[in-house]
């Protein structure tokens, strides 16, 4: 059994000491027979050394992978000369009990005829964090790419379809060769162009949501709902409906106003679109309850509803559940994506033939923080314009 002298660094070796202590890595010198550490640089000592009884200390103290049996097996190729160095990816536990991922390089050296191991250990927590981040960004990118693919495929379809229809109508007009444009054709052309316009708007909203950073700003739910309804007032079926609005907002609420607008526009227009044409009293109820933590938005209607088979798929891209559905199929998918960006949640409940209810929760970006009480409770009022 040979013993290695304890390593002393005195005044002449200040340069060496600086190099050893300041390179940002933990450096250990290990006795290859007893597997005891007989030198630690400053960084290693700070993590693993016990002032008072620093050396020798078994290498097994460093972490679970350093147990003597494994370690002996690990270093044997170094000792028999078959390998020059060993790389080890593992974790170490500091004396305070903190565990951190490391990359260790072990080599063997000889001084004055005595063999010893030099172990250089790098803390890779930062690298691991970056790896995770890259991996997350990569899946996000892949998701975006596949969505873009489907988007382009359907965009070409959805935009070309009304264009094809218009071409057809115009050819009929040309063939029919009369002096006056058949008013029925004119009406069909107008309907088709409006459809085309809506698809384009849907797509603009969609790509806006995909890329724009989520904004935060003061949100007033009462005016948001009013604005949405105002935008929809020329929609077919709007006049027939009785629309009931209840907004309760006592605090400042911060969120992305334009995204909230997209949510409301889509959900409210759906309620109008899918009202029961045979009903004597189609209605829609919009309820918003906003507090310092979140806003709960509930949109209920007594329209045609969603079948059991379709309800799980309504949020899918380009899925259109009903034969009545003449949209792009992007609406609810967009709603789902906006809710996701806002880190909220959405649920739907429906009975075919009876009605539908959407329930959303949107977090308040002013969560917990500013609680400036602004009494803004609005009594239920009928805003059927």
């Amino acid at each position, binding site marked *: 059994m040979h013993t290695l002298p304890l390593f002393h660094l005195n005044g002449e070796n200040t340069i060496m000491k600086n190099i050893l202590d300041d390179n940002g890595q933990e450096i250990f010198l290990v006795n290859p027979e007893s597997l005891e550490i007989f030198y630690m640089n400053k960084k290693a000592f700070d993590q693993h050394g016990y002032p008072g009884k620093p050396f020798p200390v078994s290498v097994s103290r460093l972490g679970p992978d350093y147990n003597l049996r494994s370690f002996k097996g690990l270093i044997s190729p170094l000792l028999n000369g078959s390998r020059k160095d060993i790389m080890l990816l593992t974790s170490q536990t500091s004396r305070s009990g903190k565990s951190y991922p490391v990359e260790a390089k072990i080599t063997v050296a000889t001084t004055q005829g005595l063999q010893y191991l030099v172990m250089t250990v790098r803390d890779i927590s930062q690298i691991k964090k970056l790896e995770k981040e890259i991996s997350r960004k990569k899946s996000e990118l892949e998701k975006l790419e596949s969505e873009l693919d489907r988007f382009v*495929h359907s965009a*070409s*379809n959805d935009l*070309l*379809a009304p*264009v*094809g*229809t218009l*071409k*057809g*109508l115009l*050819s*009929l007009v040309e*063939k029919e060769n009369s002096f006056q444009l058949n008013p029925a054709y004119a009406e*069909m052309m107008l*309907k*088709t162009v409006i459809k085309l316009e809506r698809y384009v708007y849907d797509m603009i909203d969609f790509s806006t949501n995909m890329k724009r950073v989520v904004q935060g700003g003061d949100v007033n739910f009462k005016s948001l709902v009013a604005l949405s309804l105002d935008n929809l007032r020329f929609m077919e079926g709007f006049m027939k409906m009785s629309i009931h609005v209840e907004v309760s907002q006592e605090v400042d609420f911060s969120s992305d106003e334009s995204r909230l607008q997209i949510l409301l526009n889509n959900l409210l227009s759906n309620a109008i679109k899918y009202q029961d044409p045979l009903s004597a009293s189609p209605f829609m109820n919009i309820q918003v309850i906003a507090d310092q933590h979140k806003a709960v938005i509930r949109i209920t209607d007594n329209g045609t509803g969603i079948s059991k088979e379709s309800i799980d798929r309504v949020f899918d891209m380009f899925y*259109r*559940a*009903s*034969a009545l*559905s*003449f949209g792009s199929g992007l609406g609810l998918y967009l709603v789902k994506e906006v809710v996701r960006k806002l880190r909220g949640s959405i649920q739907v409940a429906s009975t075919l033939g009876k009605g539908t209810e959407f329930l959303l929760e949107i977090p308040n970006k002013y969560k917990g923080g500013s609680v400036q009480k602004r009494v803004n409770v609005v009594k239920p009022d009928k805003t059927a314009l």
Partner: protein
Amino acid sequence: MDKKNYPTNDVMERPARYEMIMLIDDNPIDNLINKKMVEKENFSKSVLVYENAKQALEFLKTANETDLPDIIFLDINMPEMNGFEFLDAFAGLDEKVIRKSRIIMLSTSDSFKDLNRANQNRFVYKFLNKPLNDQVLSAINI
């Protein structure tokens, strides 16, 4: 069920090329355009129009052989049951239907995926862009 049976314009001299054709498209305007084109070209004696693929299938299941269409113009993009789903169900229909009614698929997309998928289906005779026009109709030779 949306079944429209229009006789051809009796000013036409040459006989109609087919007895009956069927249009399946969820857009009533597209159906109107196609029907008018078919009539102007005297392509068939009568035209059956369906806005719903499921309903069209019901008709095909129960119709007499003489009432079955010679050609079915089938749109791809439809809610509830799209063109490809219709083809899957069509495969399960009676031998007499499969023999008589040849299918031409109509679509707006240039999508290779759709084109390939349609051409690989043994019931699809052709894949055309919609809407129909005189040139395309005169090129059909089943």
